[in-house]
């Protein structure tokens, strides 16, 4: 490596590196620092000062019932919604790749289109479709109140699924396109039908794509914000601590920034651990 290359590498890496440090690394450190402080007042109405409080905020986070309920809620949401969404995405990708579907270009585009709709706009739109007095689907909304406490979580799961199925389908489909076709020829000669080929060859070949989409879905689930925030206007069943991110927002609007920072840190850690564990788990399985 010559000196010339060192300066070139610095030129290429520095701009991104500086911004990454400023807006990714520093905020994480800053959140951790802030979460270790607490506000002390002199008397009831005295001036507030920040003093070091150790793990005071974390004690509050861990004893905060609604926060842990919200974590439970999004985990339940993810345990159902992520497999359904990725199962559909995989099925559509395999159908597109099977050669049995006419009009592939059209379907690909139609299924992908919802991905262009921001979560907020999608939630507003579906909120109207769910509302009994506004929806065009009166037969459905009359027989089941989709905005009731027992169903609203799954009504939101449908919004998220609607947005992301096509996106995940395209990622898996592109991975399928990259599989060399000679493999299929060999399977055909061996007498494998389309289902057998899909199960024994195609799915194992695109496993990395499925892992990638799963990790992104896990991260997305724990960060659920736009949909519940919008649904607060449609359904009284959605409280201001319905998901972990709503809790963060709620704590920061009180405002109790130190507590909100502690919530953020715990949430980020939980997300990181969950997605990292999943990655490690699938990697180990891949080795065997």
């Amino acid at each position, binding site marked *: 490596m010559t000196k010339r290359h060192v300066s070139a590498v610095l030129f290429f890496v520095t701009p991104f590196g500086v911004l*990454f440090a400023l807006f*990714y690394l520093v905020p994480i450190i800053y959140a951790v620092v802030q979460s270790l402080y607490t506000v002390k007042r002199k008397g009831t109405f005295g001036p507030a000062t920040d003093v070091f409080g150790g793990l005071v905020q974390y004690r509050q986070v861990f004893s905060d019932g609604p926060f842990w309920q919200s974590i439970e809620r999004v985990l339940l949401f993810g345990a159902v919604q992520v497999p359904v969404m990725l199962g559909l995405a995989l099925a559509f990708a395999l159908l597109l790749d099977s050669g049995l579907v006419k009009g592939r270009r059209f379907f690909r585009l139609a299924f992908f289109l919802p991905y262009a709709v*921001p979560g907020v706009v999608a939630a507003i739109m579906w909120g109207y479709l769910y509302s009994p007095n506004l929806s065009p689907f009166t037969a459905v909304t009359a027989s089941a109140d989709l905005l009731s406490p027992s169903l609203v979580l799954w009504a939101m799961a449908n919004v998220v699924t*609607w947005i992301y199925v096509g996106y995940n389908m395209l990622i898996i489909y592109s991975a399928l396109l990259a599989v060399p076709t000679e493999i299929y020829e060999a399977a055909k000669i061996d007498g494998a039908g389309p289902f057998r080929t899909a199960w024994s060859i195609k799915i194992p070949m695109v496993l990395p794509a499925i892992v990638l989409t799963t990790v992104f879905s896990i991260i997305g689930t724990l960060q659920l914000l736009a949909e519940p925030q919008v649904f607060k206007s449609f359904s009284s069943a959605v409280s201001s601590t319905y998901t972990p991110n709503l809790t963060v927002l709620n704590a920061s609007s009180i405002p109790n920034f130190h507590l909100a920072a502690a919530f953020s840190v715990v949430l980020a850690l939980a997300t990181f651990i969950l997605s990292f564990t999943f990655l490690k788990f699938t990697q180990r399985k891949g080795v065997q």
Partner: protein
Amino acid sequence: MAAFKLPKYAATLVMAVFTLYFLTPLWWLFVASGKKDGQVTDGHALLPDKFAIGENLSDLFRYHDGIFLRWMANSIAYTVGAAAIGTLLAGMCGYALAKYVFRGRELLFNIVLGGVLVPATALALPLFLMFSKVSLANTFWAVFLPSLVNPFGVYLGRIYAAASVPDELMEAARIDGSSEVRTFFTLSVRLMAPAFVTIFLFHFVAVWNNFMLPLIMLGNERLFPVTLGLYSWNTQVNQHPELRALVLVGAFVSLAPMVIAFLSLQRFWRSGLGAGSIK
């Protein structure tokens, strides 16, 4: 032969049924955005009768001194600016990681990859506190600057650069006396063009859809991106029923830039989208 035809139609039929699931809500939004005064149950729900979209559009653009157009312009400024600059920076970093050997390369790559797993919403609150400290919260920059960073783009950039820029070509450019930086801008950028479009599109979508950051950063309505603007209108519908029509027609109009971007760049994202998941 008949036995082979059946699954063919069955597969297409399944796809057709799901097309209804994906497109009907958007079609409804189009029809609803043309209903007078937001009376969405007035007339046929899924056919544009009593269609007054022109009137609704002019109401939308005039309301509150044209605040909606201002929001659209804000969204485009945040998104196009951040995605264009962010894509170039991420692409450069990924290129260096793929094509050069240097100390700390793997460490840098792993830290950036860790960044992919850090949820952007977890950063929103500390960013707000930081920007408040320097009195920049509630400004354009508070949303724009953090939006420039795209760690996933670095990951994609590295994979694409490794796959599409041959070492021999870089060596040839070196022999011709071209500097590394010049080689990147004249040669490598062209070879990586589909990659850049893909990174740009992902980045564009991420910034356009970002909700938590502007929600937490911005108090001034005139700085809102269109998503936050529509959200704030929707929360006021109960007090101000006239806003319902504007929310619906506004939601429909707000989809236009993204749909245009997707359709016009189709050629690129179709070929580039999967590359990130192969390795």
